[in-house]
C-alpha cells in the first residue's frame, strides 16, 4: 500500500542524483573532513616537505595521544556528559606507568598499571555523576584539580626518568612500517566505531545523550551507560599514557596540562555535538588529525612561534564555520 501523497512528495523534493552526496554531507564529520582536505592541499602547496608519507605519518604519531583520548571522550559527550579531567588523568596514569616501568620494566605491567589507574579515576568520575547525581562538568572540574594535586603529592615534584626501552616500544616502535601509536589509534578507532554502531551500549549512548527523558521511558540503563563511558575514558587515557611515556622517555609532573581543552576541541571540531546525542566515532579522529595538521603545517610553513597560537585559533574557527556553511547548504541541526 502506498504512502500518503504528500509524504511521498517530500522524498521527491530532493533530486535523486544529489541524494548520496547530500546524505554524506549530512554526516556530522563531513564539514571537518572537507576542511581537512582543503587544509592538506593548502599546506602541500605552501611547504614542499609537507606532503611526504614520512611527514604525514609523523602527524598521526603526534596526534595519537590526543586522538585516543578524544575517541573515548567523544562517547562521554555523545552520552550527554562531559569529561574535562583528562589532562590530570593523563598525568596520573603516566606517573603510574612510569613508576611501574622503572620498578619492573616490561610493557604489559606498566600498561596494565596505567589502564587500571585510568579506569579507577574514570569510575570515580562516573560514580559521582551517576550515583552522586552531580553534573559531570563539576565532577570532572573538581577531579581536574584533585588529580593534579594527587600527582604532586605522589611524586613530590620529581620527574620519573630513565624509562626502560621495552616499556617505550608502544611509543617508538613500528609494526609493518607503521608507528605503533598510529596503529593503536586506528585499532581503537575501529573498535569504538564497531561498538558504537553495532552494540547495545553503543546505541544507548546516543539515546541517553539525545533525550534523557525518553531514554528513561524506554527503560534504558542510563547510569550504567554513562558509567561505562567514563570508565572507557579512563582505560583509553591509560593506553594513551603508555604511548605518551614511551614517546617522551620520562614523566613530567605537569604532563597533560591543558590537554582537556584540546580533547574537547578535537571532538567538537570533528563534528560531534557538545549537547550530546549527535556525532560519530570518526569525528574525534578527524578533529585530532585536523589539529595535528595545523600544528605541523604551521612549523613547516614557517609561521613564527609567537603567531602560531593565533593561526591555530583562526583555523579552528574556519573549520567550525564550514559546519555553519554546510547547514546553509543542506540543512540539518546545529
Amino acid at each position, binding site marked *: *500500500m502506498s504512502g*500518503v501523497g*504528500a*509524504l*511521498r512528495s517530500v522524498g521527491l523534493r530532493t533530486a535523486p542524483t544529489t541524494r548520496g552526496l547530500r546524505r554524506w554531507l549530512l554526516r556530522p564529520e563531513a564539514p571537518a573532513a572537507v576542511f581537512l582536505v582543503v587544509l592538506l592541499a593548502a599546506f602541500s602547496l605552501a611547504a614542499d616537505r609537507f606532503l611526504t608519507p614520512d611527514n604525514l605519518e609523523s602527524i598521526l604519531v603526534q596526534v595519537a595521544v590526543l586522538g585516543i583520548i578524544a575517541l573515548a571522550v567523544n562517547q562521554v559527550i555523545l552520552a550527554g556528559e562531559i569529561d574535562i579531567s583528562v589532562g590530570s588523568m593523563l598525568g596520573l596514569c603516566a606517573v603510574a606507568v612510569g613508576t611501574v616501568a622503572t620498578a619492573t620494566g616490561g610493557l604489559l605491567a606498566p600498561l596494565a598499571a596505567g589502564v587500571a589507574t585510568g579506569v579507577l579515576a574514570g569510575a570515580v568520575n562516573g560514580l559521582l555523576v551517576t550515583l552522586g547525581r552531580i553534573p559531570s562538568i563539576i565532577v570532572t572540574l573538581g577531579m581536574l584539580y584533585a588529580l593534579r594535586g594527587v600527582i604532586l603529592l605522589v611524586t613530590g615534584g620529581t620527574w620519573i626518568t630513565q624509562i626502560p626501552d621495552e616499556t617505550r616500544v608502544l611509543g617508538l616502535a613500528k609494526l609493518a612500517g607503521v608507528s605503533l601509536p598510529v596503529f593503536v589509534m586506528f585499532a581503537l578507532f575501529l573498535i569504538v566505531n564497531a561498538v558504537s554502531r553495532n552494540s547495545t551500549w553503543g546505541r544507548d549512548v546516543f539515546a541517553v545523550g*539525545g533525550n534523557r527523558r525518553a531514554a*528513561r521511558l524506554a*527503560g534504558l540503563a542510563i547510569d550504567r551507560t554513562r558509567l561505562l563511558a567514563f570508565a572507557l575514558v579512563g582505560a583509553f587515557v591509560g593506553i594513551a599514557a603508555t604511548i605518551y611515556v614511551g614517546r617522551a622517555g620520562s614523566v613530567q609532573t605537569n604532563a597533560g596540562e591543558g590537554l582537556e581543552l584540546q580533547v574537547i576541541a578535537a571532538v567538537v571540531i570533528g563534528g560531534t555535538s557538545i549537547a550530546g546525542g549527535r556525532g560519530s566515532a570518526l569525528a574525534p579522529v578527524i578533529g585530532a588529525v585536523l589539529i595535528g595538521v595545523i600544528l605541523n603545517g604551521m612549523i613547516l610553513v614557517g609561521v613564527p612561534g609567537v603567531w602560531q597560537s593565533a593561526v591555530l585559533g583562526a583555523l579552528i574557527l574556519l573549520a567550525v564555520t564550514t559546519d555553519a556553511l554546510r547547514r546553509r547548504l543542506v540543512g540539518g541541526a546545529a
Partner: protein
Amino acid sequence: MSAIEASAQSRVEHRAAAAVHPPIFRLAGVTKRFGGVTAVEAVDFDLRRGEVHAQVGENGAGKSTLVKLVGGLYVPDEGRVEVGGEVVQFSSPRDSEAAGIAMIPQELDLFLELSAAENLFVGRRRPRRPWGALDWRQMEARAREQLGALGVEFDVEAPVERLSMANRQIMLIAKALMGDAAAVVMDEPTSSLTEREAARLFRIIDELTARGVGVVYISHRLGEVFMVADRITVLRDGQHVRTAPASELDSEEVVRLMVGRSLDELFSRGGHEAGDVALEVRGLTRTGEFEDIDLTVRHGEVVGIAGLIGAGRTELAQTIFGVRAAERGEVLVDGEPVELDSPAAAMEAGIGYVPEERQSQGLVLPFTIAANISLSILGRLSRLGFVASQRERETADGFAEQLAIRGARVSEPVSRLSGGNQQKVVLAKSLAGGPQVLLLDEPTRGVDVGAKSEIYRLIDRLASEGRAIVLISSELEEVLSMADRVLVMREGRVSAELSREEATQERVIAAATGVAVGEDEGAEGAAPAASVDTER
C-alpha cells in the same frame, strides 16, 4: 455519516463477546498525589481482553496520571496495580512492558537525532547478525513494515527530527505496537493526526482487539471515543465518576458527567460580516516547504487552513510570524509591509501566533504561569526599565480568569498544569500583545470539550472584535464549523479556496489529497484509508 463511522460500526459488534474475559490489568483504589495536588484519588479501572476502554475527562482530570500508574512511570501512593490477577510493583516502564503493557505517551518523546528505524528499537531486543553485530538492514525492513501497516511510508533511515509532528506521533504508535503486548495504552494518540491517519489507527485498533489485545483509549474527541470504545470511564477532578458500556451512554451524557453540568451544544460560529483586509500574504515561498502562497484575511474573519500531514501549513504560519526566514514574497498587515525575519517585528506589526508544539515552542516550563503570559510584553509591563511585578500579576490574573485556567495559581510554575490548561496559557500569551492578526496552529490540540468550546467562543469573540484569525487545524470538523472561508493546502500549495457554503468534508479531503472523492455519501464501502490511497 462518514466512512470512518461506518467502519467503526462493524468493529463494535465482533468485540461484544470479549467482555466476559477476566481483566488484563486492574487498578484498585489507586491514589496519586503530587505535593499538595491529588491528581488521582481512589480510582478503580480495569481493562479486559479484546476491548477498547476509553477514558474521558476534562484537562487535568487525571487521565494521563492514571495510565502512567500502569505504565510504570508512577508508583501509586495508595491502592494496587494488578496484572493477570496478581499484584505488581512496577518501578520502570520496562517492567510494565515486560508485563505486556505497551504505552503511547501523550508527549511526543522521541530520540530526534536517531533514525526512525532505530527509534522503534531503542530499549528493545534488536535483530542481530550471527556474529553479534546489529542487523541494520533487518531493523529498517521491520520498521518499514511496521509503518506500512499503519499506512505511512517515509525515510526510516533519516533522523526523526526531520519528520513532521504527525509522523512522529505515528512513530510512537508503531513503537507501542511492535511488541506482542496484551494491552496497549493510547494517551491522545490522534491529537496530531488528521482524520485520515486517525482512520488508519482505528483499523489497527480493530485488528488488535480482534486478536484479544485490550486497548485503553484516551481522547478529547468524543466522536472518536464513541466510534472505538466498548466501555467508557469518565474522570473528574481526579475522581472516578462512572464506567459504563459505550452503548449505554451518549455524548451529551458523557459531557455532563465530565463537567458536572450539562453543556450547550458544541459551539458553532454563525456567519459574520468581514471588514477591511487585515493580513495580506503575497507569493510567500520557502522552497521545499511551500510555494507562492497568496492569502488575505479580513478584519473579523476566520480563515481555516486544512491539509494533510506535511502540507506545509505550520511552516507557512511560522514564516508569516517571522520564525522562519522567507525566501520570497511579502506579508502586509493593514497594508503595511511587515519585516519578515523576527517574531518581535511580527508582533510589533500586530501578528500573534499560537504554536502547535505547546511544550517546546509555547512555554518555558520552569517559569510561572504569570511569567509565561507576560514574556512577550515585558517591555510594556516595565517601569523605568524594571519589570513591574504588580502589573504583571494583574495581567496574568486577568487572563487566567478570562480563559478559565485551572489547576494552579499564576505564581506557580506552568509545569504544574495539565496539558489543556497549559494550552490556554499559550493562548493567553499570544493574546497578551493584543494582536490584530492571530495565527492559531492546532489551538485545541489536547484540549477537553469544555475548554474547546471556551476556545471557540474566544475565537468568535476575537473575530467579532474585528481581529483577523487564521485557524490551522487537523480536525476537519473544527475548521468547517469555525471558518468563514477554508483554504486547503496540498504539497506546499493552496489547492482550493472554499467559502463557508462550499466547504464540505468531501471537498476538503479531495482538495487535500488531489483525488476526487465521489460526492455520493453512501460510498462508505470504501474505508477512507482505501479511498484516498488509490492515487499513484
